[in-house]
């Protein structure tokens, strides 16, 4: 397919790998922020082709993984109500809540449906006016414009049987929490390309300046990822710390103005609890007061629900890049995609699932942590 195949060309990939190998002098650790990038790295074996002195740390950019347990429990509570059609992207269905997951709720008889777009959920609400249709609005900045548009259209058309369980999170505040931790081992960041398509790169310029690290806006194909690594390595070796855009064919420095206008119209920035990272100030979106009628937490009276994260899954360490999935004592043993202990083993963007699917063996803990 055009704009995909060109970025998988072996000759160009080897040329960039050779350039990285020649450029990088001291060992370095780069964090690829987005889970889609993590999956591409493991799928194409880029981690094994890169020089050993360059380590890739996997970041928290998996919305399914960082959605806290209490939000899954809210989803389950809503799905179990009468006359509810609960619509979600497929990834969320197998994330374990306190008592089962959405797929189990569906098996029990709840009307849980997978949709590919929030507008599909809105269409169901139009077609089935006797049902209360709820959309699980999960995602990072990339998905926010689409989900905002669903609320905007619902308000304009007065679709009163539609609401959204909003669990939107924002990348820069999470990165700030990781970089500001004091013992951060991150020498540079591959910024999430599709988030930057929507938001632009302004917030990343502040991070690059504040934490003095190179940040490269990076795409998702093998060549995109390696060009991102090369650009970060070049900056490191020159002692620079700025934002470099290597995904310019789609990511504009100022982002997508039309999309951000709709996001600002519908959402307010709010504090959010992240699975594994805890509560981070100003790290998410909620529906603004004007759209409160479409807030499923209000509609179903679930605002007060608080649930602590389970102890037996160390997904918080994985999401912070502090534990490599194969070093987890449960990886591939108690925890598999069929029987996940935590979200990173479920999601198509979760780091644990990537290691499992692409055949990285479980390692002795001390070796994998090195």
């Amino acid at each position, binding site marked *: *397919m*055009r*704009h995909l195949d*060109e970025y998988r060309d*072996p000759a*160009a*990939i*080897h*040329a960039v*790998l*050779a*350039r990285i*190998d020649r450029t990088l002098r001291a060992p370095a650790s780069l964090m690829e922020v*987005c889970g*889609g990038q993590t999956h591409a790295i493991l*799928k*194409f*074996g*880029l981690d*094994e*082709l890169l020089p050993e002195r360059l380590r890739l740390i996997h970041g928290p950019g*998996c919305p399914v993984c960082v959605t806290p347990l209490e939000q899954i429990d809210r989803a389950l509570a809503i799905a179990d109500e009468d006359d509810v059609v609960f619509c979600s*992207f497929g*990834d969320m269905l197998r994330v374990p809540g306190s008592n089962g997951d959405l797929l189990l709720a569906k098996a029990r008889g709840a009307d849980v449906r997978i949709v*590919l*777009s*929030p*507008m*599909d959920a809105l269409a169901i609400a139009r077609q089935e006016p006797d049902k209360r249709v709820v959309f699980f609005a*999960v*995602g*990072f900045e*990339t*998905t926010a*414009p*689409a989900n905002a*548009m669903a609320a905007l259209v619902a308000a304009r058309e007065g679709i009163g049987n539609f609401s959204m369980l909003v669990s939107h999170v924002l990348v820069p505040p999470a990165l700030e929490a990781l970089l500001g931790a004091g013992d951060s081992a991150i020498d540079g960041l591959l910024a*999430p390309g*599709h*988030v930057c*398509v*929507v938001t632009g790169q302004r917030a990343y310029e502040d991070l690059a300046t504040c934490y003095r690290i190179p940040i490269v806006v990076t795409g998702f194909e093998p060549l995109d990822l390696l*060009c991102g690594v090369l650009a970060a390595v070049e900056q490191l070796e020159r002692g620079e710390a700025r934002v470099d855009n290597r995904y*310019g*064919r*789609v*990511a*504009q420095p100022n982002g*997508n103005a*039309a*999309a951000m206008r*709709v996001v600002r119209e519908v959402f307010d920035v709010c504090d959010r609890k992240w699975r594994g990272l805890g509560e981070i100030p100003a790290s998410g979106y909620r529906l603004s007061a004007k759209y409160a009628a479409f807030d499923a937490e209000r509609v179903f009276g679930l605002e007060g629900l608080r649930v602590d994260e389970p102890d037996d899954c160390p997904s918080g360490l994985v999401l912070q890049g502090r534990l490599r999935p194969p070093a987890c004592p449960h990886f591939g043993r108690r925890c598999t995609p069929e029987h996940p202990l935590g979200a990173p083993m479920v*999601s*198509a*963007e979760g780091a644990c699932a990537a290691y*499992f*699917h*692409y*055949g990285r*063996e479980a390692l002795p803990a001390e070796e994998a942590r090195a």
Partner: protein
Amino acid sequence: MCLAIPGCLVAISGQGELRIGRVDFGGVSRDTSLVFVPEATVGDHVLVHVGFAIAVIDEDLARETLEALAMLDALAEPAPIADALAASVDAAPRNNHGQPRRIFGREDLEEGR
């Protein structure tokens, strides 16, 4: 979840918020909202995420990037990486399901591309 796929805009209908494009993804086509890419015209390649086009692909920049990379390729010395890759293919590691592991470049080597 931030997965977004490039496709070719083959037809447009409606206006403003209701502007819808037919986008072809290598033979499979889907209706896609164009509300966030008012500048898109038929023949453009767009990046699509959950039913919405979020960017028009800059063809000139894409071409320039690939040309620059082709230059890098032409300048490259024979790298030790090719040997490392061949060695890793010989070792044929297995995945968790006991099947030979997919390593990037494996098929490419076998097919002599």
